[in-house]
């Protein structure tokens, strides 16, 4: 199956006129259509955090409201590398969160030149294989590119097959760093 073929020719990269989701002043959003679903991608808002926490908790089994709020606030903190927190919102189910992605540009950690890190990517289980994750990843990659970085990284546990297959399918390959660890017990 060719994933690129799932995009329609009418796919828009900017909000369509009369789109049902009004964006706020200064907020950029894009309406993404696939053969099976149309959804809106936009920066996360403070009032998305409850749905983000809920989705993450259903997938990981851990509720981390303070963590997601902190990552949300990091988008706005002056003097810090801006975080990027994007959400995918269902066009047909007024405002329902379909997925989210969080990343950040970090420089010179472990000697690495500036690169975009994807910290978290989550998609509603009943909305998988609709292109939501792919659109979120493409969108954050675009943000990284705009900021002038040419490399995107993430970290996945080896036995976590679903994200592993997804990121590999999106063209991500093993990088030049090896993660090392030691039990301190």
């Amino acid at each position: 199956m060719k994933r690129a073929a799932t995009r329609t020719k009418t796919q828009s990269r900017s909000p369509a006129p009369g789109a049902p989701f009004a964006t706020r002043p200064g907020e950029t959003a894009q309406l993404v259509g696939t053969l099976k679903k149309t959804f809106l991608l936009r920066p996360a808002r403070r009032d998305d955090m409850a749905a983000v926490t809920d989705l993450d908790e259903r997938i990981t089994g851990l509720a981390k409201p303070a963590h997601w709020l902190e990552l949300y606030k990091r988008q706005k903190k002056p003097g810090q590398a801006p975080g990027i927190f994007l959400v995918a919102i269902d066009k047909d189910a007024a405002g329902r969160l379909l997925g989210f992605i969080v990343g950040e540009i970090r420089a010179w950690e472990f000697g690495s030149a500036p690169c975009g890190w994807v910290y978290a990517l989550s998609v509603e289980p009943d909305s998988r294989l609709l292109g939501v994750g792919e659109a979120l990843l493409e969108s954050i990659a675009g943000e990284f590119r705009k900021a002038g970085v040419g490399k995107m990284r993430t970290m996945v546990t080896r036995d976590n097959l679903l994200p592993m297959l997804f990121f590999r399918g999106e063209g991500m390959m093993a990088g030049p760093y090896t993660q090392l660890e030691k039990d301190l017990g």
Partner: protein
Amino acid sequence: MKLQIASRLAIFAVLELTEHSERQLTVAEIATRYGVSTHHLAKVMHELGRAGLVRSVRGAGGGYQFCANARRTTLLDIIELFEEFGPQGPDANEPGGGTGEAAALDIVLGEIDEAVRATFGSITIATMRRLIERGRVPPVATGRLGS
């Protein structure tokens, strides 16, 4: 890291079939493409058929067709049909087996095996096709891979 010839042939055959999914390919066509013997490839195709990854269509225009899900079939699924793969565990019958040195070496070898297994297990046929289409992998030069 080297795969057995049967594993390589099986991966190439599946990639070839998914590239030409609109029709069946004969063993002779695939064998010619990779410069291998039809006899060896026929055995590989039979094994892929038994695993439900390909099916043969008889008659004029017949041949093999990929019939599994390319987005769910990993390189590891194919390789494991032809060779034992992954951590073997300590073997007391090996020279030095049962010693502390052998145990330490097993830890290192296990780490390598785990990484290799995770790599093959996370790359699907669809991902391989995308790699090829993106041109990150140069075209295969026709030559004999084995007999």
